[in-house]
């Protein structure tokens, strides 16, 4: 951010204030979205505005609490004291485990086919003392897990909770270091520590322009069928999306993304209806999965 950004912001604010003063406030929708999901939202808006140019839709930061719509990547815990929140699911995302390409332990990582049990051992602390005991009595030379540092998100909105829940654990059970901020930064964090491993959405792992895995990342080879493995290790985003959409792979967490809101109006309803139908065409482009056909 710099002075230019500031001037732009002030200009937008001035415009909106002027609109408010003249009573022209209809058709403005505010959407809170994280950095990870913001490109998808912006792509939807772009597509929607080609059909409804009069509607103004503004994307706000993920921390905003009073936007009309909030795009949520992680299931929110039910809190009976909060006002009931409605959800419209609009996309899905998949999580894959990665490590920096420069990881000195890369050969050891790639030599392995990572099963569910291995991923649990790598990413989570032992579930009980018996498991700790088993781990502790294993030869330390075999403990690749101990040489790798796990990075995960601490935010309630992080996909970390999805990842943990998929393996039957809680986010608090993850080993290693945490980050505060958008999940996008997990990839920044593992850049700093070469022996790190993390997980992330396809939208963050793949270059959306070249449609390939970011060159400084390597996927952990998962213990899946050969064809599935080839598709994943091809590094091609579209093949990966196609695979995950068409087949259930137990090792890959998949979760819905939804717009949450308290109330809607006609404009918002119309926008939501468009996103779950026509808007789905943009999901792949931004690295997200489409809603299932029958949803």
């Amino acid at each position, binding site marked *: 951010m710099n002075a230019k950004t500031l001037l732009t912001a002030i200009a937008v604010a001035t415009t909106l204030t002027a609109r408010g003063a003249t009573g022209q406030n209809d058709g403005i929708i505010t959407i809170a979205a994280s950095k990870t999901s913001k490109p998808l939202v912006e792509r939807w808006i772009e597509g929607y505005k080609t059909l409804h140019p009069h509607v103004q839709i*503004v994307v*706000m930061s993920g921390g*905003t609490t009073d936007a009309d719509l909030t795009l949520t990547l992680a299931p929110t815990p039910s809190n009976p004291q909060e006002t009931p929140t409605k959800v419209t699911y609009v996309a899905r995302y998949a999580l894959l485990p990665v490590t920096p390409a420069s990881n000195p332990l890369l050969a050891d990582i790639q030599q392995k086919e990572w099963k569910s049990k291995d991923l649990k051992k790598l990413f989570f602390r032992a579930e009980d003392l018996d498991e700790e005991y088993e781990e502790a009595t294993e030869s330390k030379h075999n403990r690749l897990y101990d040489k790798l540092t796990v990075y995960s998100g*601490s935010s309630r909105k992080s996909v970390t909770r999805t990842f943990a829940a998929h393996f039957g654990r809680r986010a608090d059970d993850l080993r290693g270091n945490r980050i505060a901020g958008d999940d996008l930064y997990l990839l920044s964090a593992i850049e700093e520590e070469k022996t790190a491993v993390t997980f992330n959405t396809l939208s963050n792992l793949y270059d959306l322009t070249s449609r390939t895995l970011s060159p400084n990342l390597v996927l952990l080879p998962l213990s899946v069928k050969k064809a599935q493995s080839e598709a994943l290790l091809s590094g091609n985003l579209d093949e990966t999306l196609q695979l995950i959409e068409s087949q259930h792979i137990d090792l890959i967490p998949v979760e819905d993304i939804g717009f949450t809101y308290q109330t809607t109006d006609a404009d918002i309803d119309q926008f939501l209806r468009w996103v779950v139908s026509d808007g789905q065409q943009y999901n792949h482009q931004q690295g997200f999965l489409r809603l299932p056909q029958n949803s």
Partner: protein
Amino acid sequence: MTTQHKILLAAAFSAATSLAAHAQTISGTISDALNGDPIAGAAVKYGNGRGVTSDIDGHFSIGVKSLPIKLTITYTGYRPQTLTVYDDEEDIEVKLTEQRNFLNDVVVVGYGTQSRTQLTGSVVTVKADVFENSTASTLDGALSGQVAGLNVTAASGQPGAESSIRIRGGNSVNASNDPLYVVDGFIYYKDASSSGTGLGAIESSLNPLATINPNDIERIEVLKDVSATAIYGSRGANGVILITTKKGKLGEKKAHISYGYSIGLSSVSKHLDLLNASEWAQFQKTYFSNKGGYTDEQIKALGKGTDWQDAVLRTAVQQAHELSINGSTDKSRYAFSASYTDQDGIVLNSGFQRYNFHTNAEWELQKNLKFGINATYGRSKQQGLTTTEEQVFNSSPYSAGITNSFVYALLMPPVISVHNADGSYNFTNPYEYAYFAIGDHAANPVYDLKESVAENVNNYLLSNVWASYKLGGFTLKATVGLSSEKLTQNYFSGAYTSLGLATQGIGGTGNRQTDVWQQEYTLSYNKELGIHQIDALAGYTKQTSTSTHSAIRTNHFTNETLKQYNLGDGANIYTPQTGISESTLNSLIARVNYTLLDRYNATATFRADRSSRFSKNHRWGYFPSLGLSWNADKENFLAHARHIDYLKLRLTGGLVGNQEIPDYAFSTSYNTGSYGGSSSYAKANTANDNLKWETTASYNLGADLGLWGGRFNVVLDLYYKKTSDLLLDVPMGFANGVTSQLQNVGNVENKGIELAVNGTLLKRRHLQWTASANLAHNKNEITNMGKTNNVIQGADNQQILRKGEALGSFYGLQFVGIVQNGEDVSQQPTVNGLTPKAGDAKFADANNDGKIDGNDRVILGSIQPDLTYGFSSQLQVREWDFSVTFAGSHGGKLYNALGRRLEQTGDSYNVLSTVKDAWTAERGGNTLPLASTSRPFSYIDSRYVQSASYLKLRNLTIGYRPRLPKSFPLSLRIYATASNLFTLTPYKGYDPEVSGGTDRGAYPSARTFTFGVSITL
């Protein structure tokens, strides 16, 4: 808010963020991952050694120049978390998970707390579950077998009686060997001068720990070595027991209310095998004059007769109610408890009752300013046995081994009935002609016990208020408190009781009021500077103790209805006893803990004490200590050893002192009395201007090892203690007007090894099994006695203080057998100038001078055990829980004076059935001599210095927590406990656990079965 305004704010926020990026504030909340409770006091470190701590709600905020920034969040007992903050769009949520690791414990130490990783001293923690599983009414009963090197010996089975607690052996002869007790940071001071009212005649004294309800205890820390105890300087020599009571837990806003009720039945754990009526009458006829004139037929018809042992024992009922409430608000926390215990003793008319109210609360009055109050008020009452008291002349029943009415019951001839045919008490006993019969009236022990009064009633208030203010790394704390106790002793023995026979009834009452004021002012400083961590403390404490007592006794009663409440009826008045005793102790304390790289720890402690108990020139005592420890597991060469969680090595050394002697022992004093109707003064003590501190130099080498993910923990300690300038009662020549004087003479050494292990054998969701064991060996030796070697002690001269031997060594003849028929006695040493004949006892002629006398006495062992050990295990299977605790001791000896008395044959008293195997010409025998009315040798012999080794099943508990519907607002636990279920011991008396080393017929121990329920809302 309108949409435009939302957008406006968003835009403005974004802009502001952008502009102020060089000075932004990030904030967050730290909480427990499991229960969501906020964690106050967690350290948030960032940048180059900077940091903040979370507030009471777990909040923190820090100003940073730019993002990202790496934070390290630590809180003792939780896994540290490294968190890199990339943006501040929302508050940071840090959830810490508990770390199961022995070294992550926070340990309560003198005047503060410390992480176990930083500890240099030897400190053992006993958690609340130990007290919850025990049904003991005082905490010492629950501590037995729990801590390596802490030896608890019950003085007797009397409910509410005190125990002897020794940490790493005894250091002292005449000064106290009891550890120092500190309750919630405040010294609970049991003054050596304040144990009685001057009344006497009451056998048991009330346990000072009876003022603390075990269920109020959250944890106990036992400080064993000098690095830990030196902060208590003058009173640290015998170890320190820090008691922390339960408090409301911060963040738990819902009040926890629990109620517990238990009821139990107790019975004697062992019966002595005495002769029954037939056996006793036959015995009398065979060996003595057959006073009863029984024919053989009549003897056979007597059968079992009266079992006097059973007649004075009973199945006793005990019950307890407990109510506790604790919780917290945003700025305060509180705990309150009320309890009532009513425990009947297994001997008639004995028991213990206690009401106890305890509260513990603190408030955060303003930011950084806290205020707290701890208060315990209660009343305990103990009904014990009257004692015949030790007399200095030979003809007293005490010197003949009849110490109280319970012992007298064991001696009663079984041909004598308790009651007459009309139901009245039987006061006729033709066999009693020695001590307890006057004219036609003989004492009846059942009547004695039922009608005599021997009460200790203690009303106590332990209270303190404190305030602390935190300023940066500094914390200033001031505490003022009062420990006030009013002890009343009541005593009455009517004209038909053993003790009242000669005086037509005797009674008395005594009071002691003890007020101990304490003030403590401390300044502590805590700072982390990168790899350095400093925790420093300095302070001043003052203690003022005033104790007054008064006692009056009268005899010759004409009306016993109101007993001790009508002492004016006694025609004869003893000289009233009154007195006052005052002492002060001023102390300066200082301690610095330094930790480098979380690996290397040092603790330097210094305390200077000024005690009024010593002569003017020697009042100051200086007690320094230094402790070092090394967390070796954090070194590179161990960092990847997967099976090792932690390995710590500790080394400490320093000086501590002992001032637990009576007030004014350095000065000349006189006892008042009356003589010929006028007052008289008798010299009680002669001045010693050189009386000074007893000091103990102590060294400890220890290791803490944790293996397999917290599954197995080992603590090993080696120690050496040398006590110098021993406070010893040295015999004085007649010219001094006193028999002895307290002087600083000699040295005592204790050296030993302690091992404690605990392990989690299984831990699954519905199955948990833990076990712990400890073992300790201590060698005690008097290494110097100055010019006063060989001080003989005890009513039977049974113990000796001798250089090269242990404290509490027994001294007597070595029994070698019985002279048999036809044995050549010409070579036998003579006894009292006579050659022994067949049927006489033989003793070793230790000095080979051909005669048996006092010079043939040898050391027969000591009260010091070679090994003490304990084992406990807990198992939880779904809703069921089981726990078991064993405690044992090996190698110690006990003088069985009761056994000696009960194997002494005669025509008055009953005897043990072992006497049936006494030597006779026909069948021989090699243990007891031919039965006769001869009194035993005036010196004790090895037959009655018996092994006090034992293994006891202290506690066996089974509990059940039924699954209640979730709509039920409470949880429930039902349990059953067996205490003292069995004792394996070669000891021939009731119980090998008798403090002091002499069993004169101590109140027998009980086996108790308790059933209880606890309800928590």
